[in-house]
């Protein structure tokens, strides 16, 4: 349920077709393509909001990649002498009901969240974009059929559909990735379709068609680079949404199974100890909150870079 919303303001834009000429057009819901990735990253780093988002996401990525080096102890190592110990110098975030170090479990929990977030959004982006490209470029029956399929997926509340898919296929991290990818497919498909409808009718695309270039070449080497900007922005926002959905599934016991630590299943455990050990609920929840906040800040920054009038 967490995602930013864009009011979709009209903007005067300049679009540069790859291999084509500059043209200035008034259009709605089409955003400015970046002049270069280096300039984009520099812009993000200088904007305090985006920089904060980059920092938060960066910390999570570092934690996930270097967990064995960062975590103080093995996250699954029980310590029955220090059960439900409060935060202290020896256990910075305290211990849980089996004496396991909470900080170590949170560091390792970043792996599950990022694994699911990256893979599910990447899968949804690739498949959804392909669907949108085909639907927008060919139109007619292809468009009608593919968009009706997307409408059917969209007809289900996303968390409910993800729940149903993991319930049927069985609880695991892989099935969580699949479920979240399926529910996010229509977002990319619709966005890619809308952008393709506009770009595929521009002169430089018609020129490539007239020159005899194949459809795959036109779609992947001409249309796709010109529609990538909004897809990237959407991807950053859906990454946040995917992490939250994964935490929901884990909280309900349908994500990664114990003893694998995930922030969601840590919160699930914490419910039984709210009075005795409230720290079990503070830190995993804060971890989810901070990484999602980082993604939303980054997404807002990307959107503002691409649409200065917003």
């Amino acid at each position: 349920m967490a995602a930013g919303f864009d009011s979709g303001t009209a903007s005067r834009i300049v679009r540069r077709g790859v291999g084509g000429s500059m043209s200035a057009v008034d259009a709605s819901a089409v955003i400015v393509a970046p002049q270069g990735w280096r300039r984009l990253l520099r812009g993000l780093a200088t904007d305090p909001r985006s920089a904060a988002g980059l920092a938060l996401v960066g910390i999570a990525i570092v934690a996930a990649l270097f967990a064995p080096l960062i975590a103080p102890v093995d996250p699954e190592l029980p310590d029955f002498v220090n059960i439900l110990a409060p935060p202290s110098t020896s256990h910075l975030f305290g211990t849980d009901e089996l004496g396991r170090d909470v900080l170590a479990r949170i560091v390792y929990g970043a792996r599950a969240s990022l694994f699911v977030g990256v893979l599910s959004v990447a899968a949804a982006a690739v498949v959804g974009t392909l669907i949108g490209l085909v639907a927008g470029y060919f139109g007619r029956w292809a468009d009608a059929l593919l968009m009706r399929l997307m409408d059917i997926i969209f007809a289900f509340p996303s968390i409910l559909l993800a729940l149903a898919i993991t319930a049927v296929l069985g609880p695991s991290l892989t099935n969580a990735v699949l479920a979240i990818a399926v529910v996010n497919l229509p977002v990319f498909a619709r966005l890619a379709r809308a952008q393709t409808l506009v770009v595929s009718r521009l002169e430089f695309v018609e020129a490539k068609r007239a020159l005899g270039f194949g459809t795959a070449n036109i779609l992947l080497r001409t249309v796709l680079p010109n529609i990538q900007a909004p897809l990237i922005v959407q991807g950053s926002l859906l990454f946040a949404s995917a992490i939250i959905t994964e935490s929901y599934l884990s909280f309900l016991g349908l994500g990664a199974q114990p003893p694998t630590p995930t922030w969601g299943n840590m919160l699930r455990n914490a419910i039984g100890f709210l009075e005795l050990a409230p720290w079990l609920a503070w830190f995993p929840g804060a971890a989810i909150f901070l990484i999602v906040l980082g993604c939303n800040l980054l997404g807002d920054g990307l959107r503002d870079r691409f649409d200065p009038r917003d």
Partner: protein
Amino acid sequence: MLRVILIRIASLLPILVGISVVTFSLIRLVPGDPVIALLGMEADEASIQALRSQLALDQPLVVQYFAWAGRILTGDFGRSIQGGRDVLSMLLGALGPTALLSLAALVVSLLISIPAGIIAATRRNSLADYSASFIALCGLSMPSFWLGILLIMGLSIAVPIFPASGYVSPGQDPAAFFLHLVLPAITLGAALAAATMRMTRATMLEVLRADYVRTARAKGLRERHVIWHHGLSNARIPIVTLLGIQLGQLLGGVVITETVFSWPGIGKLTVDAIFARDYPVVQGAVLITATLFVLINLATDLIYTALDPRVRLT
């Protein structure tokens, strides 16, 4: 208007058919025998054979689907594996608490988001704007079940004002019902409020830049009148649209909130059924919830048309 409604309903039919196909397919995705999935491991051979014949499992999938759809349309959603209760009556019984919780969340959201969005828009780039926007962003980023847990820790355990879980029927004890409703409604309404506040702010900013607002100010109208009668009346359309969409999404969000607070709605029923492998209930809950979601979106579209007669739905 009637023609628009009929066209819209007709366009929904393929979606509803698609929902039914997906829901029908769910059970077929469960590893193993779908009859065992529907009756449970404890079922006797006679029941298994009877259901196998009823479901026409020896027939092609298309025949099975139409047999299932026919039963659904006559109100036969099957029987719960746990306890043998009629699934449809279980679902209808759970809809009431879910509807009450959803409406309460919507009220919480409106009370917070509309004033906050207007203040942020009219005092752009001020401390009030930045604060409201940041709080809204935090609201969007916070997982709802964590907010629920924090509220339980603060307002049920540390300072015991509200009960941590449970449900009392409003007819039975209105005061107790209200006390049980507050925390789940705030939990569910907070994320809704955050998104609505951002939409309100963005839309009001657009509207307040419009020529007719400039004209209204030039005529000497009071700022409050300009904002409420000229600004908000034009900004309400995208806000209402967003609320309609969000209300539909609430049907998914209630799953988590009802689980945290043990609120006996359709969300908790679905989760309990999943863990009990009570697939007839899961199937029925998914079908009912998705259908309601589609109908809420239809209602949103129609309200949108009623608010703005310039819009023609095609």
